[in-house]
């Protein structure tokens, strides 16, 4: 998200359409290819053992050989991420609405939510396994505690940043608190909420993998852990690659959602 404005800075003048897209992506693609080639060369020249740093070609071989297992694990992890992400967004929004609408409840809840944010939630994973077993539930729970906070916080920030004179305008004609909430505050918070949702999408991937590390019999996190005990480092890297692809996919899905939900919002990341 942050690399695109940087690219814009290095562009002397606006280039239109396909050319603009190519010229903004090309340097990154070239750098990536050069890195892969250097990596491959370094591993071969210094004959580094493949269980310490596998060459890109080894990783690719492993990816092809274990394709079936890896795909099955990817589907499991993707399911956890999607489910956990949706639960986080729903809970996060509900919490923000309750905090804003019911003042006394908000004053009770908000400090506790912030306090809870300081708990290292990754450390909760073993407890969730203890409580909910090895299935889907502990992963959803872990994603929820990791990912709801940016949703709640960004929506609260959006709802509370409504201009005072706009509020006095609607107050002067006798608007009810519910009217102000749903006609002004909630729509006004959407651009900010969508930014928080994108962060939650990224955190959901982390939550799922950590959940699988703590105890699972399936999924990419499980593959990574299992492969590393077998010293099958190429497989570890292959699984890592797929986790990264999942992360990118979820991030861009959230960004597409943003464009659908708030087409009127000012664009921060225009290529």
């Amino acid at each position, binding site marked *: 998200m942050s690399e695109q404005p940087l690219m814009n800075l290095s562009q002397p003048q606006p280039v239109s359409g396909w050319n603009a897209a190519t010229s903004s992506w090309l340097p990154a693609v070239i750098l990536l290819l050069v890195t892969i080639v250097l990596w491959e060369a370094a591993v071969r020249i210094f004959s580094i053992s493949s269980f310490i740093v596998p060459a890109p070609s080894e990783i690719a071989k492993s990816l092809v050989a274990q394709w079936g297992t890896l795909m099955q694990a990817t589907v499991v992890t993707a399911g956890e991420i999607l489910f956990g992400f949706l639960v986080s967004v729903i809970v996060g929004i509900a919490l923000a609405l309750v905090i804003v609408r019911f003042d006394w409840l908000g004053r009770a809840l908000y400090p506790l939510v912030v306090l809870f944010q300081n708990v290292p939630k990754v450390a909760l994973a073993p407890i969730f396994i203890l409580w909910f077993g090895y299935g889907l539930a502990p992963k959803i729970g872990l994603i929820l505690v990791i990912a709801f906070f940016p949703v709640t916080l960004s929506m609260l920030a959006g709802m509370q940043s409504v*201009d005072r*004179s*706009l509020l*006095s*305008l*609607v*107050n*002067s*004609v*006798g*608007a009810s608190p519910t*009217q102000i909430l749903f*006609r*002004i505050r909630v*729509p*006004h918070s*959407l651009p900010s909420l969508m930014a928080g949702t994108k962060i939650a999408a990224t955190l959901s991937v982390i939550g799922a993998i950590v959940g699988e590390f703590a105890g699972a019999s399936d999924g990419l996190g499980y593959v990574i852990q299992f492969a590393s005990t077998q010293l099958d480092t190429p497989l570890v890297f292959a699984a890592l690659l797929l986790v990264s692809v999942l992360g990118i996919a979820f991030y861009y899905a959230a960004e597409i959602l943003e464009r659908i939900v*708030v087409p*009127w*919002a*000012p664009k921060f990341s225009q290529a």
Partner: protein
Amino acid sequence: MQVETIRPAGGRSTHIRHDDLISAKGVSVVMGTDQNRQLILRDIDLSVPKGSFVSLIGPSGCGKSTLLKVLAGLVSPSSGSVSVAGVSPGEAARKRMIGLVFQDANLLPWKNAVDNASMLLGIADKSMSRAALRARGQEMLELVGLGDAAHKRPNELSGGMRQRVAIARALALDPAVLLMDEPFGALDAITRDSMGQSLLEIWQRTGKTIVLVTHSIDEAIQLSRQVHVLGINPGRITQSLDIPLPYPRDTSVTEVPEFVRLVLQLRTMLRSSHEPGDAT
């Protein structure tokens, strides 16, 4: 074209006319905490006749915006009384008798112009159908000269157009009085001129009472029937100036010798209003 009454500072006008839409008597506003109390407005007497166009002008910090907020019911005076159409400002606002326009148009970015224009009316009158609100919004957009921009979102409108939508939104309530706080303050000079002309046309067509807060001497004289000058420390009405130029006025009014004379007079009044009220 003859008389202009200059009221000395602190002098109370004794004649209270029956057709005053707004009347404030002895209004003072104190703000701040107990340790740091500040007298924002002192002993304001103001009467605005029905159908009139009145401007409040003064140096920044004189409390002219606060005075407008008092008239709108957004700030309650610490002492004194205010009535708008015979009731308290707050009640008048709830009865949709007050239309507000601020320097910032404050449009909802997710709604198009016509929905923005009818937004306040929709909140105030829950019984109105969507179609009726749209029709009213469209009617008001046409009144402010934006009839063909109904489906544009605020980010597709210029600053002047956004402010026109804000005026349409206030007019949609069909208020008795339009209270405007530096509505053209953020606009460039050319846009300001055409907005002023439009406002005059709207005023003459609808017969609304208008109270305009401005820091522009030209604008105050060009548009209003009466100008009240506010002094600073504390904010108070130091002088009032009647503008006897005939309506309808257009921008050519600025070339009339009488206009130039009024500008000079108002400028002198403003200069003396900078002096603190309490001789120290």
